[in-house]
């Protein structure tokens, strides 16, 4: 058996089909989910993909968070449904308060696309178990509003609870506080990050690295072994 992993398409989602491909490459079955449908089609996990949903107008993720599909995602995430938010998906998760903090415009005020070095800080979440803690990986990053911010209390709490999942190494590409690239919720089922693991899954494509594939194999193993 394999796992069924849903990928939500919002208007303006861009990396939705790329995420479906990554899920397929990992051996799971991608399921297309539409933002206007509350029905999650009984998937075992959900990915909110990257892009510019609603053009990032108003504020990145601020409008998508009110989509019908998000009502169900928020409900089920609270009862353990694994959810991964990539880039715009991470922004939607913070707007929906499934993850703490918020994203501001990059400090240099430019869009940035680069092969980004990261350290895996938490290899115990639903989406990171195929990594080892402290592992250094390269994942493409591409965003306009990627500066992670939160108040000091929240940042300290995240650090204390091991909920900083990924940190930028060598270069902080957007001015994120404490070099935070990704975080998880307390239960470890909801993870969000700015870099795009789905773009590091094939040796020939993009940067030619496959450092992003473990996101999708991690969740597959968890679901199949469950």
């Amino acid at each position, binding site marked *: 058996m394999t796992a069924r992993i849903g990928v939500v398409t919002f*208007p*303006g989602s*861009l*990396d939705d*089909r*790329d995420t479906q*491909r*990554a899920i397929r490459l990992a051996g799971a079955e991608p399921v297309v989910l539409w933002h206007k449908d509350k029905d999650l089609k009984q998937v075992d996990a959900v990915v909110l993909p*990257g*892009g*510019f949903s*609603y*053009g*990032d*107008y108003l504020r990145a993720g601020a409008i998508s968070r009110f989509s019908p599909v998000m009502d169900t995602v928020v409900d089920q995430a609270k009862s353990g449904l694994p959810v991964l938010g990539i880039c715009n998906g991470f922004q939607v998760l913070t707007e929906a308060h499934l993850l703490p903090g918020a994203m501001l415009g990059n400090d*240099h005020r*430019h*869009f*940035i*696309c*680069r092969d980004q070095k990261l350290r895996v800080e938490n290899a115990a979440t639903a989406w990171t178990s195929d990594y080892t803690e402290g592992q250094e990986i390269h994942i*493409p990053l*591409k965003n*306009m509003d990627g500066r992670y911010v939160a108040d000091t209390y929240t940042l300290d709490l995240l650090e204390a609870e091991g909920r900083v999942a990924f940190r930028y190494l060598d270069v902080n590409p957007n001015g994120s506080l404490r070099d935070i690239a990704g975080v998880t919720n307390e239960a470890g089922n909801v993870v969000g990050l700015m870099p*795009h693991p*789905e*773009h590091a*899954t*094939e040796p*020939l*494509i*993009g*940067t030619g690295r496959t450092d992003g594939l473990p996101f999708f194999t991690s969740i597959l193993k968890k679901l199949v072994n469950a």
Partner: protein
Amino acid sequence: MSRTPLDTVEHAAATPDVELPWAELGLKKDEYERVVEILGRRPTGAELAMYSVMWSEHCSYKSSKVHLRQFGEKAPESDALLVGIGENAGVVDVGQGYAVTFKVESHNHPSYVEPYQGAATGVGGIVRDIIAMGARPVAVVDPLRFGAADHPDTRRVLPGVVAGIGGYGNCLGLPNIGGEVVFDSCYQGNPLVNAGAIGVMRHEDIHLAKASGAGNKVILYGARTGGDGIGGASILASETFDDAKPSKRPAVQVGDPFQEKLLIECTLEAFREKLVVGIQDLGAAGLSCATSELASNGSGGMRVVLDDVPLRDSTLSPEEILMSESQERMCAVVEPGKVDRFLEICAKWDVIATVIGEVTDGDRLEIYWHGGKIVDVDPRTVAHDGPVYERPYARPEWQDALQADDANKLPRPETSEELKDQVLRLVASPNQASKKWITQQYDHFVQGNTVLAQPEDAGMIRIDEQSGLGVAIATDGNGRYAKLDPYHGAQLALAEAYRNVATTGAKPLAVSDCLNFGSPEDPAVMWQFAEAVRGLADGCLQLGTPVTGGNVSLYNQTGEAAIHPTPVVAVLGVIDDVARRTPAAFREEGQLLYLLGDTREEFGGSAWSQVVHDHLGGLPPAVDLERERLLADILISASRDGMIDAAHDLSDGGLVQAVVESALLGGKGARLIVPDGLDAFTFLFSESAGRAIVAVPRSEEVRFTDMCGARGLPATRIGVVDGDAVEVQGEFSLPLERLRTAHEETIPALLA
């Protein structure tokens, strides 16, 4: 409150003496008289609006048409060409049932007036051309030219243009995989912002811009129509900038990439369900263009009710609605029985769609407003029978003196130290420096099919995940070469783009071009244009790569000063399996470096002559297209058979520029030996065409050199991939880190 009567066709016939503002709308007196002659009466205001925009230089190609015909007349035999010049974009067969459409267009004038929106809407327009052919857009490229890198206005224009391209293209989810950035003071008041796009479809999905089948409905969908870009086509794109005139900002359109993304998805969904008979995007000249082109390309006429056009501004006049260049709009012709489903798909994507008319069995384009008929024309006279000018042209008097000012006689470096110093100056010069600060503002990865992207020689996209079938695209143009000799300059642009595609392992198939020149009313400029077109047409015939379409941008001049003639050529190629692509980076120490082709003392128009002597004179490098073809064949065979691990084309900056780029990309140095018969300076800086460097694994050396020998391509061993410096034996050694600093810090220092 008095109210002027609606200027209907009847009213126009009854009031022949009413003066219309044809001159303000950009028409010449004889052109206006021709409109009157065609109609047999004075035009209505709405008809005048349509003729004025459609007969503008930008839309009618009235100055360039007589020359552009050569692209058809001299077209080489090609099995690959599925749709040629005249449609929204050309279409090429790339095998396995796939067809690829691609095109390059200019958005030069708007980008100078308003850099961000000008560049953004340039991307939007070219992408709609691709969708209108039935294809999913898969990549964009942006050939850009700006004034001097250190000029204060470049700091205004360039960051805005780059942010606009990124802001729009990134939001559409299109990887930006190639293009160029060139600085030259000749572009100071006339930056060139060209935008190219590629789309992929199955053969059976090709769509054309024609309205057929009486009773079929005309549906306008996408953004509401507003007051932006009115008269843009006629006034903006067809006149020389002049400081004395009022600001043209209101004629630049404003882009909404989110709306365009929805338009892409909903159009592709309608195509998948076979709901569309004909389709046209709304670009320059807006509804005037879309309705007249759809009607004139189809079998019948068309009736449109302008009151049904959804508006952003309810005060717009019918003339303004017809001329508006509001972005993100398309027009589809749909059978009555399929209209409901089409509207349903638009609603799913939250796209506004409205039936605004229908195809008739007549041969007239009729447009109604408030119940009155305000347009009644033969659509062909609007769309296709615009004026054609045989503009006078003459080789400029200064051309001889320019060519006699031989760059080969410039003082050359006399010591190794000077040679080294000039290498550093070259790789750090704005034109030769790394453009990473610019390209990292573009998404290269989205869609997950990018195999190669800038700074590689060509961008490469996988189009079939199973078979690995892919396409490559390169755009090139060298205004300095073309200024010295426009005929050969155009051929050198073609040769370089062709070579760049082959360098990555792809087989060149077809050409699109964007021809950027000064004012056609200047006989010297017109001569440059005529020569460049002739050179390009001859070159395409010889290389077997047909021109599938393109764009002409004239009036790129401020006062008397025209830009360098700048034909930008895009070559599209195909590769059976992207796993066989050849990147530019040196990856393995110990691999042997070979120089392919002949190196001569050719410095006319070279980067060296510009950087070291601020000089432009002499003749550009000699063109040998048969040699280009042989070189391409060798590069493609070597890539397919795994004989080479890296390859890089030699062009501006010569061999040393290519070696430094490949070394920095791979983080591996090179030890070079000056071959017999060449001096170190010529070896490093000459810009002889028809050359490339390749890195050959030792195990493949014999097989590779045997192949070159058997086919008569000179292959000279010039060194080895090794160490962490670029060393020229007996001359100098430059550590990679020093080269990297020189190469990568220039652009951020100027622009960041």
